[in-house]
């Protein structure tokens, strides 16, 4: 092979690479479809202050409970002025009230709780709720129905104590706190099971 032939071969190979490189660059520039990134960089950082303004949930382990305590007698006063009109006082009523009973006093339901006749007995906090913390969370976020979010943490603590008392969960004189509320064992708790349906032929 002479020198010229060798140079020709070099030039051809070089040309081949240059052309391929140009083709690759051009097609990649023309490609409009981006690949899916790990992050899009959309949205702004949430500040601690704005999170805590919204973060009102209370977990069964007590996370989210403000420091405080609730007193049954004080709760009764608040209940009677802000809740009783809709939820009643545990007595049977002629007309159906806007809110369901949160506790019941009357004899016909007395021995009819805790699952014996689950279909008939009214589901109240004492017979159906598995966690006491749910009372605080729900009343604070959604009640009274006509003015949700209007209660102070103090009022919610008092009301929680009163509702637990009227459901025979705590005895008179008990003061509840952010430490004791998560420890209360509700009567209905042991009845709770997790969903085990999974389709197929088993009917559950």
């Amino acid at each position, binding site marked *: 092979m002479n020198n010229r032939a060798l140079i020709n071969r070099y030039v051809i190979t070089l040309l081949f690479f240059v052309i391929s490189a140009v083709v690759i660059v051009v097609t990649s520039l023309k490609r409009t479809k981006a690949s*899916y990134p*790990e*992050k*899009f960089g*959309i*949205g*702004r*950082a*949430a500040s601690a202050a*704005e*999170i805590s303004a*919204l*973060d*009102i*949930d*209370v*977990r*069964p*382990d007590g996370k989210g409970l403000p420091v405080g305590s609730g007193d049954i007698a004080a709760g009764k006063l608040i209940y009677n002025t802000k809740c009783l009109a809709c939820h009643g006082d545990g007595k049977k009523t002629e007309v159906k009230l806007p809110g369901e009973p949160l506790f019941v006093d009357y004899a016909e339901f007395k021995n009819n709780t805790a*699952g*014996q006749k*689950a*279909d008939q007995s009214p*589901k109240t*906090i004492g017979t*159906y*709720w*598995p*966690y006491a*913390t*749910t009372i605080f*969370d*729900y009343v604070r*976020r*959604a009640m009274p*129905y006509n003015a*949700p*979010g209007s209660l102070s943490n103090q009022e919610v603590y008092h009301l929680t104590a009163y509702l637990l008392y009227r459901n025979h969960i705590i005895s008179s004189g008990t003061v509840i706190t952010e430490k004791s509320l998560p420890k209360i064992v509700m009567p*209905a708790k042991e*009845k*709770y*099971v*997790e*969903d085990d*349906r*999974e*389709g*197929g*032929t088993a*009917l*559950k």
Partner: protein
Amino acid sequence: MKEENSENKLFTDRKISRRLLLGGAATAAVVLVQTSVGKMVQAAVPESVVPPLLTDSTSLTAADLIADPTRIPGRGPSVSGMPSSFENPQRIPSLTSSRTPLQDLYGTITPSALHFERHHGGIPVIDPQKYELVIHGMVDKPLVFSLADLKRFPSVTRTCFIECSGNFRSGKEEMSPQEICGLTSQSEWTGVMLSTLFREVGVREKASWFLAEGGDAAVMTRSIPVSKGWDDAMIAYAQNGEAVRPEQGYPARLLLPGWEGNTSVKWLRRIELSDQPYMTREETSKYTETVKGGKIRQFSFVMDARSIITFPSFPVQLERGYVEIRGIAWTGRGKIVKVEISVDAGRSWAPAELQGPVLDKAHTAFRYLWKWEGRETEIMSRAVDETGYVQPSYQELSAARESKGGYHFNPITKWRVERSGKVLLGA
């Protein structure tokens, strides 16, 4: 704008005099006419040719009926249409819910205006400009998304049903499908996959649940396993081609295909990642059901397979001859694979035809041709889904649960056809 000018010219060419415009002439009337570019123009035309349908360009009522619509030009185009005034399907509202008129619908999409409602604190009015969704908790980077932010992410469109898990009513013979199980509706939803947002905030590996919270007066909250978020959960901002309706969670809602409706939290304002459920009122006091042995079943998310014949059903008066039995079937566990029909009170069953394409976790239309000879009988449908689950009878379900009803009750609905052609809900 050339087109607009030439349009206007058409009308101005008629040389409307002031007297005509003031209505002084008995021979003329002033009408508002909408041009095709949406501009309202006044035009005066002799009374004899005033088309009655042009007098009111927004609503067309039975009073506008004319003997021969081929002889008079009809109403022009409008900015937004309305259903024919001869059709009036309606939801049945109560204080806290309203039911879809299943027996009045065709196919599988529920018109947005007729989507069932269930809310716990009324429908909030939320300014889309001020709307924000906060995602925080067990994440690397808590973020706030505006509505515009949500719309910038890659979008997904899917058709699926939403059904309230408290969707079983009985107790009367005179009940329509709407009254029995009208708390199920289907839409084509568009939004962003929650998994996309999960990646954006960097959901930590230890996070196993998330709390979804609404911005309504109930500040609705539900705990959802994180796996559903990675699987097929969406944040939907559009429904059937338009923005989500206010009663469906405007401007954005969670959408958990196949799961009980309450978990698809509307007016979504916050998601908090956690390593345990929150045990909110809506997953303890409500949306739990008593089952065998006095137990209370919790976190029953998936909707079991169900079907209902929507025609013929109460209050239809059936006529002898060929009857196309029609209805819908659906399951939260994937696809409907079979719907069987019995026209002899459950003695024998035959497969109905399914309208394809059969979609995942979606209302599926079925039909079955029947010739009714006028004999008293009971007709019913039962759905089978891809897991092999067969929709049970009321008696079977009631025995399995030791319960008479409650959440997640999906029994076969029987229709008793009387000799007179009356169709009533069977026992």
